[in-house]
């Protein structure tokens, strides 16, 4: 049988099939891009970024309240605000919420909003999967926090060491909520990571080679690779624990010869890269802000990129430095002590680069700049106490005391959070079309800086004096009282400054009605996301810019004269885009990512309470996926006779039949019957 000629069973292929699509009822795609419903169905990376940010700020209030409860409890010796049990839950949920529901989603917010803009892409590679990632994160976070109303939160510490995480020591459902909630956010992180990596690698504007990408995009790429490889390890550990708790497996059952160190290894193989994936986005953001407010390019662009990549790689080789006192043996301790000291090198390179960027620059001390400088200072302090932890004998004394609480708050609060705060001030006009008030912003910064140092600097002292962390109270007479009082005052100062930020949002918004709009480029910035109008139009760029060098937007505005001095070659208004986006077609919104994600917590409750809920949740997920796959196609090409794709160019000379819009639509429908993403 000649395969290629007679194909009796073969269906028509190659040439478009004339299949009419009659969407019915729920299968119709939602079209509205305004109103509250549009937020539930959006697939626009910018809206999803905003939702990540809003959710993170909401969880920040929860994590912050938990922190204030901790500090209020420790105000005086033998405090009675919280019972020992309640204290365990509060500090566990504070850590979990801060790490998984505040800092990580803040990174995701900026990655989602900015990264496609910085590389000149219309959207991420899989817009619907992007929405799904967000909803997974949100339902996971809410699921986790519903444990407060259903018998109490998790109480094993955010690191959840075995065997304290077993049913024997923690009989309530708190830890099950922790497991299931974080598996849900993990699904979101993993799909998000795949999506963003594909976007960076595949969808850059013409001319934008990897070494011309903005630093933030680079750090996003490294971060997402860390997520890609770290999340499955945590998920493995959580499944093992879940099976132990729900189905009586023996992974952490010491009576059956289980080894509790297995949990520590799995957890920290995830947990240490996690630390870097929290801090790297902030490093990227600072690398965007400092050059703008120093009016100099970033010093040593390749160094700052490669040190980020090096941190990403080396982050995998240091996990056991969390385990120096767990009895892993002298050879392991020595090895991990050395690797931990080495990882200070690329971090130091970054600090040097930022300092050199500011050196001799025309500095403008705006709020974003202040927060950036705050990050450099606070992170350096945290890095120094980090080096003292890499020295194993010192660590043996410091670990499990407030010294280490001080260390990681300097790194993650003073590092990551300061960076995100600065970036919020920096990118606010781009996202919402109005500037945040600078005076309140500066007050916000100084209050945060003061509160932060009041809270965490004394903890170094407390730790060296020997005050244990994770213990709900302390006795009088050890010299702990005064520093605990200072720290508590500091914590409430931080809370005031966060409230000031929220006030700033609403006040500035009200005031902005009387002010001229900030325009596309309020800071005289360098990277191409500032080329589009503020707030960013839905289509991002029209046309997509071609990139010639790092900081392409800057060099469209500025050139050099014969003496190498900076001269303006074009007014900002001439180089920013003024487009109405006609002819740009974007994917339509969709219900299905939300529906699919909503099935997950139903399965979660089913596993904990009653099996038939699992069945319902499973059906919701399957229905969601089915709806997703069967959704009427929606292709940007369908509506406009697009004639500038590479395919059309090759066909140009040939005699082409006029393409009827209907035929084009049908062809596209057939081609893209299942739009991906």
């Amino acid at each position: 049988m000649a395969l290629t000629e007679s194909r009796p069973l073969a269906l028509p292929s190659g040439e478009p099939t004339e299949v009419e699509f009659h969407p019915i009822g729920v299968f119709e795609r939602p079209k509205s891009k305004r109103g509250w419903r549009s937020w539930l169905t959006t697939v626009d990376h910018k809206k999803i970024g905003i939702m990540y940010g809003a959710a993170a700020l909401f969880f920040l209030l929860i994590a912050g309240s938990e922190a204030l409860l901790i500090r209020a409890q420790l105000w005086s010796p033998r405090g009675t605000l919280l019972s020992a049990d309640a204290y365990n839950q509060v500090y566990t949920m504070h850590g979990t919420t801060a790490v998984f529901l505040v800092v990580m989603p803040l990174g995701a917010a900026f990655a989602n909003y900015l990264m496609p803009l910085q590389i000149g892409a219309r959207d991420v590679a899989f817009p619907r999967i992007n929405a799904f990632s967000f909803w997974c994160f949100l339902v996971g976070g809410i699921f986790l926090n519903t444990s407060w109303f259903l018998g109490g939160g998790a109480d094993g510490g955010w690191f959840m060491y075995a065997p304290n995480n077993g049913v024997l020591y923690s009989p309530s459902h708190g830890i099950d909520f922790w497991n299931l909630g974080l598996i849900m956010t993990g699904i979101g992180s993993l799909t998000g990571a795949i999506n963003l990596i594909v976007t960076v690698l595949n969808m850059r504007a013409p001319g934008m080679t990897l070494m011309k990408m903005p630093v933030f995009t680079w750090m996003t790429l490294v971060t997402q690779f860390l997520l890609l490889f770290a999340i499955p390890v945590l998920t493995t550990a959580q499944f093992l624990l879940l099976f132990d708790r729900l189905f009586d497996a023996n992974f952490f059952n010491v009576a059956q010869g289980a080894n509790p160190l297995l949990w520590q290894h799995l957890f920290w193989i995830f947990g240490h890269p996690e630390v870097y994936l929290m801090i790297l986005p902030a490093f990227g953001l600072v690398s965007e802000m400092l050059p703008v407010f120093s009016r100099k390019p970033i010093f040593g662009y390749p160094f700052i990129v490669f040190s980020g990549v090096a941190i990403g790689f080396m982050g995998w080789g240091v996990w056991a430095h969390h385990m120096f006192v767990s009895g892993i043996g002298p050879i392991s301790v020595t090895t991990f002590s050395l690797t931990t000291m080495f990882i200070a090198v690329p971090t130091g390179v970054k600090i040097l680069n930022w300092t050199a960027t500011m050196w001799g620059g025309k500095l403008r001390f705006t709020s974003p700049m202040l927060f950036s400088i705050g990050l450099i200072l606070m992170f350096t302090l945290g890095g120094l106490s980090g080096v003292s932890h890499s020295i194993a004998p010192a660590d043996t004394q410091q670990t499990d005391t407030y010294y280490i609480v001080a260390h990681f708050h300097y790194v993650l609060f003073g590092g990551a959070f300061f960076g995100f705060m600065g970036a919020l001030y920096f990118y606010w006009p781009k996202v919402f079309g109005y500037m945040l008030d600078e005076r309140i912003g500066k007050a916000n910064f100084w209050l945060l800086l003061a509160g932060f140092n009041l809270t965490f600097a004394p903890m170094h002292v407390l730790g060296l004096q020997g005050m244990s962390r994770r213990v709900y109270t302390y006795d009088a007479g050890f010299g702990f009282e005064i520093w605990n009082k200072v720290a508590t005052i500091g914590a409430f100062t931080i809370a005031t400054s966060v409230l000031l930020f929220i006030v700033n949002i609403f006040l500035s918004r009200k005031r902005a009605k009387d002010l001229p709009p900030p325009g596309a480029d309020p800071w005289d910035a360098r990277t191409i996301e500032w080329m589009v109008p503020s707030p960013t139009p839905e289509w991002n760029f029209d046309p997509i810019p071609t990139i010639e060098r790092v900081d392409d937007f800057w060099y469209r505005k500025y050139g050099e004269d014969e003496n190498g001095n900076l001269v303006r070659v074009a007014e900002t208004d001439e180089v920013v885009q003024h487009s109405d986006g006609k002819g740009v077609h974007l994917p339509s919104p969709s219900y299905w990512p939300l529906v699919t994600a909503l099935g997950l917590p139903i399965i979660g409750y089913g596993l904990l309470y009653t099996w038939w809920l699992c069945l319902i949740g499973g059906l919701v997920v399957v229905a969601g996926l089915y709806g997703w796959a069967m959704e009427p196609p929606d292709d940007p090409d369908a509506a406009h006779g697009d004639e500038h794709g590479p395919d059309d160019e090759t066909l140009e000379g040939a005699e082409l039949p006029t393409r009827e819009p209907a035929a084009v639509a049908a062809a596209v429908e057939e081609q893209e019957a299942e739009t991906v993403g």
Partner: protein
Amino acid sequence: MAETVTHHRELLAERDAHAPVAHPDHATNTGISNTKLAMWLFLASECLLFGGLITTYLLYKHPLPGSGPGPHDVFDIPFTSASSFVLLMSSLTMVLAVSAIERGDHHRLRVWLVGTALLGATFIAGQVYEFTVFYNEGLGYTTSRFSSAFYTLTGFHGVHVTVGIIMLVSLVLLSLRGRLPEHRSETVEIVGLYWHFVDVVWILIFAVVYLIP
């Protein structure tokens, strides 16, 4: 100076207008399509998932004395070798399916896809049979640290094979409805990537769990 500046600006505008990226899917920076790259990344992360499970198994492969049967009390290596062979053969039929659609032979495509799914299903049936035998010999999920680790590792792999079978059946249905033309042969290829990955992982698991004493 002013002239060159204006000229420069015009060049920039022209350059942007002719950027061939109005539809990013038509040409990607790497030359690999978005979906294929996504599958490669997903499989990379799966390595870490199975890495964690295999490590756990290696740590727990010997039960405490007196806590139920150990690995070589229950394993029937000839039987599992046969079902492993069946699974490995399914990689061959998968390759033939991909090759069929690239030649435009939709009939053969469906034959080989169904064949692959059947081979996968045979493997799963073998696993179910094996688990039943082990259970009857006194190796329950909660019996010992070895039993928990064994069932979890092989069970996770079994779930992956099952998901693969569902994807293969979906491909057959798509093809029957005429929604899988040659120019979308990559969809088959991507499912193939997943399928080969699951097979390769099984080679590792088979070696580590059954063959290494």
